[in-house]
């Protein structure tokens, strides 16, 4: 018994020593976190990167949504903070300020491709052909009827427009921790709001509230991944969900996609700019970690290489919509020049 006690004491001492020793040791693995839309792409790049660069360790890719990733990114500089934040929208001014306040002054933005945002419903249900105006009418807390704002009266899609199926309105949208939400708001809801035409004589705050307040009874905000949205659709087949195009493309057996303004979302229509709801994808690199964390610069260069995020590259096979090669070249050049604003 006594020896066992001594042994445990020794082990504790050793563990404590190991812990303190860790402080001095610098991290040699690239740490990434953020958008769940970018996560699959970043993970694939991480794996392929370590296969091509045997001298570097495999980068670690976490999720948490664009907002979560950027707030982790802006916690400061050092070993215990992440090196790259994946984002499905651009960094906000407020987030940049938070970064600066914490000492993260060299933020390098890298745009690497596009993703479409699609409305999809159960594969066995009816077809949807949506317009931003119809989506706005379906989910806004108050809609414009005869020039005045009234509480949203619609319960079925067919009441909004006879061309839509006679099915109760239920829409699963990403919660505000996702970058997808901002694009959804901007490209769909706000567009629909403008088309509806705001009534005269409202203050700016009232207008903004009319534009951004949703009905809580039919709108389900999903803070998890797209699989959570899919689970919603499975439990209530009447739900229409908001997904990334790449997620939809991998689940075409259970999902049916809706057209927006008559355009079906495909890689081709998004790349050509015909499909209205698309957004660029980004990641943000902490400039101060370049040269400290081994392989960080090589990771970015590899990510932007032709065979990875270019046309016919491995990410296109996984659902990314590549950007023109010239754009990529410019972005890479400005990254390497350390073009921090």
């Amino acid at each position, binding site marked *: *018994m*006594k020896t066992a*006690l001594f042994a*445990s*004491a020794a*082990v*504790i001492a050793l*563990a404590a020593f*190991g*812990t303190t020793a*860790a*402080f001095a*040791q610098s*991290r040699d*693995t690239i*740490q*990434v*976190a953020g958008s*769940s839309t970018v*996560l*699959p792409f*970043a*993970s*694939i790049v*991480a*794996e*392929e990167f*370590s*296969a*091509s*660069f*045997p*001298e570097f*360790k*495999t980068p*670690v*890719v*976490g*999720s*948490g949504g664009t907002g979560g990733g950027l707030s982790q990114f802006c*916690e400061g500089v*050092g*070993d*215990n903070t992440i090196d790259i934040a994946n984002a499905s929208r651009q960094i906000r001014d407020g987030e940049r300020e938070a970064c600066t306040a914490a000492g993260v002054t060299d933020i390098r933005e890298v745009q690497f491709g596009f993703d479409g945002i699609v409305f999809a419903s159960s*594969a066995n249900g009816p077809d949807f052909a949506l317009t931003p105006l119809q989506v706005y009418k379906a989910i806004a807390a108050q809609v414009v009827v005869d020039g005045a704002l009234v509480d949203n009266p619609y319960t079925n899609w067919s009441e909004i427009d006879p061309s839509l199926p006679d099915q109760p309105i239920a829409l699963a949208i990403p919660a505000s921790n996702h970058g997808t939400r901002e694009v959804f708001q901007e490209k769909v809801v706000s567009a629909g709001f403008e088309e509806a035409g705001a009534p005269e004589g409202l203050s700016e705050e009232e207008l903004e509230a009319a534009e951004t307040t949703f009905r809580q009874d039919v709108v389900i905000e999903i803070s*998890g*991944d797209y*699989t*959570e949205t*899919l689970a919603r659709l499975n439990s209530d087949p009447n739900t229409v969900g908001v997904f990334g195009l*790449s*997620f939809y493309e*991998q*689940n*075409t*057996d*259970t999902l049916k996609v809706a057209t927006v303004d008559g355009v079906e979302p495909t890689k081709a229509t998004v790349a050509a700019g015909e499909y209205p709801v698309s957004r660029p994808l980004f990641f943000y690199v902490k400039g101060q970690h370049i040269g400290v964390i081994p392989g960080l610069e090589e990771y970015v260069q590899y990510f932007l290489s032709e065979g990875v995020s270019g046309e016919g590259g*491995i990410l296109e*096979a*996984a659902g990314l919509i590549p950007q023109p090669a010239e754009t990529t070249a410019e972005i890479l050049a400005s990254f390497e020049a350390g073009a921090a604003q």
Partner: protein
Amino acid sequence: MATDTLNSPGAARARAVRSSLRRRHLSEQIFRGFGILAIALALGFVVLLFVDVFRKGIPAFVQSNLHLSVTFDPEIIDVSPAPARNGFATEAEFTAASLAWQREVALLNWNQVIEASLRQAAPAGTDIDSRTLLSIAETNARHQVREMFVANPTLLGQTVEIDVLASANAANWIKGNINRELGDAQQQLAAPARALIDTFVDNGTISNGFAWSIFTNVDSRSAPAAAGLLGAFAGTMWMMLIVIVLAVPIGVAAAIYLEEFAPKSRLTDLIEVNINNLAAVPSIVFGLLGAAVFINWFHLPISAPIVGGLVLTLMTLPTIIIATRGALMGVSPALRQAALGMGASRTQMVFHHVLPVTFPSILTATILGVAHALGETAPLLLIGMKAFVASVPATPLDQATALPVQIFLWQGNENRNFFEPRTAAAIMVLLAVMILLNGVAIFLRSRLEKRA
């Protein structure tokens, strides 16, 4: 006589007893009935859960292998010869040259090698474009072939028979995870690929085998069919090691001091109440604490098993302290008094007489506490262990995930058809580890109790 007895006070009491007896028997039967119903319900739910997990998970333990003969064609593999150790003065120079050569090898188009061997395996006259053809084999096939070449550069120009994994979508098609009746637009694979897969299955090029990859591979996103649990398993093992090394000695020592040595005072009462409260604190709170203290304050690495282990240690400590104190309290006072009466000191009494008796209980409590920590997920999500890690942690300071977190991650993978079964398989592995741990606890307990 008979009427006499009927009217006597004793007979009246007997009647009263007899009539209440029926009522009492009935209430007992009702209670027993509820008890059996409760057990049946509880067992029913457990059986339902197990049947569901097993039904979904068992098919995932079968993987589809493509049997290919791969030719290391010098026309595709056009690289300079591998550097030899004796050509360099120092080890460092050789390592640098070797890495440069490996980079050169990595930049080759290994997909061409795979494509050529797939074409060779396909029946003559199959009309299929290269992208569709490559969608049959998992994307890690090219790394597999490349690594073979790096390990043995003399393979250049030779033809070798190897097994590569069929892609996740091909496996879905073969196993029927995706509805085979659906039209082209809803299928993941193009029609020619599906036809060729069926041909391969018929002629034996594709065969099914036990999915060792689940146990020997790390997680993978680019090659989903090759995704395995090894990294998560290693992460879990590191954390359990830390929990055992830290929580057991600290917990047992704290319990012994509190129970045997500490003076009964307001302070020890307060400590006791707090320990009991700590045991009831939700695990997510420990996660928040861990993120704030170990990562932001002590600057320990994120996503590392050491932080996970420390957080789980905090979580397990109260359980072990309470269980150990309970065991110590249960030791008969006669034993203590006998020891003290024979002139033993307090320390001798505790360590020579009381502790050995309680050893089986302490051990069981420890193993059950560890088993609980093993399945804990919530605190790990908050300390960055919810990340995609494609390597095996060599030390507790390396980034890792844990088994329950891996289940969570696979559950969120976008290839639902492939990962739903694989998630169930991961659950089965976690359950197996837990049952094993509990089995060890029972075995040790019964053995030690016999000895004691």
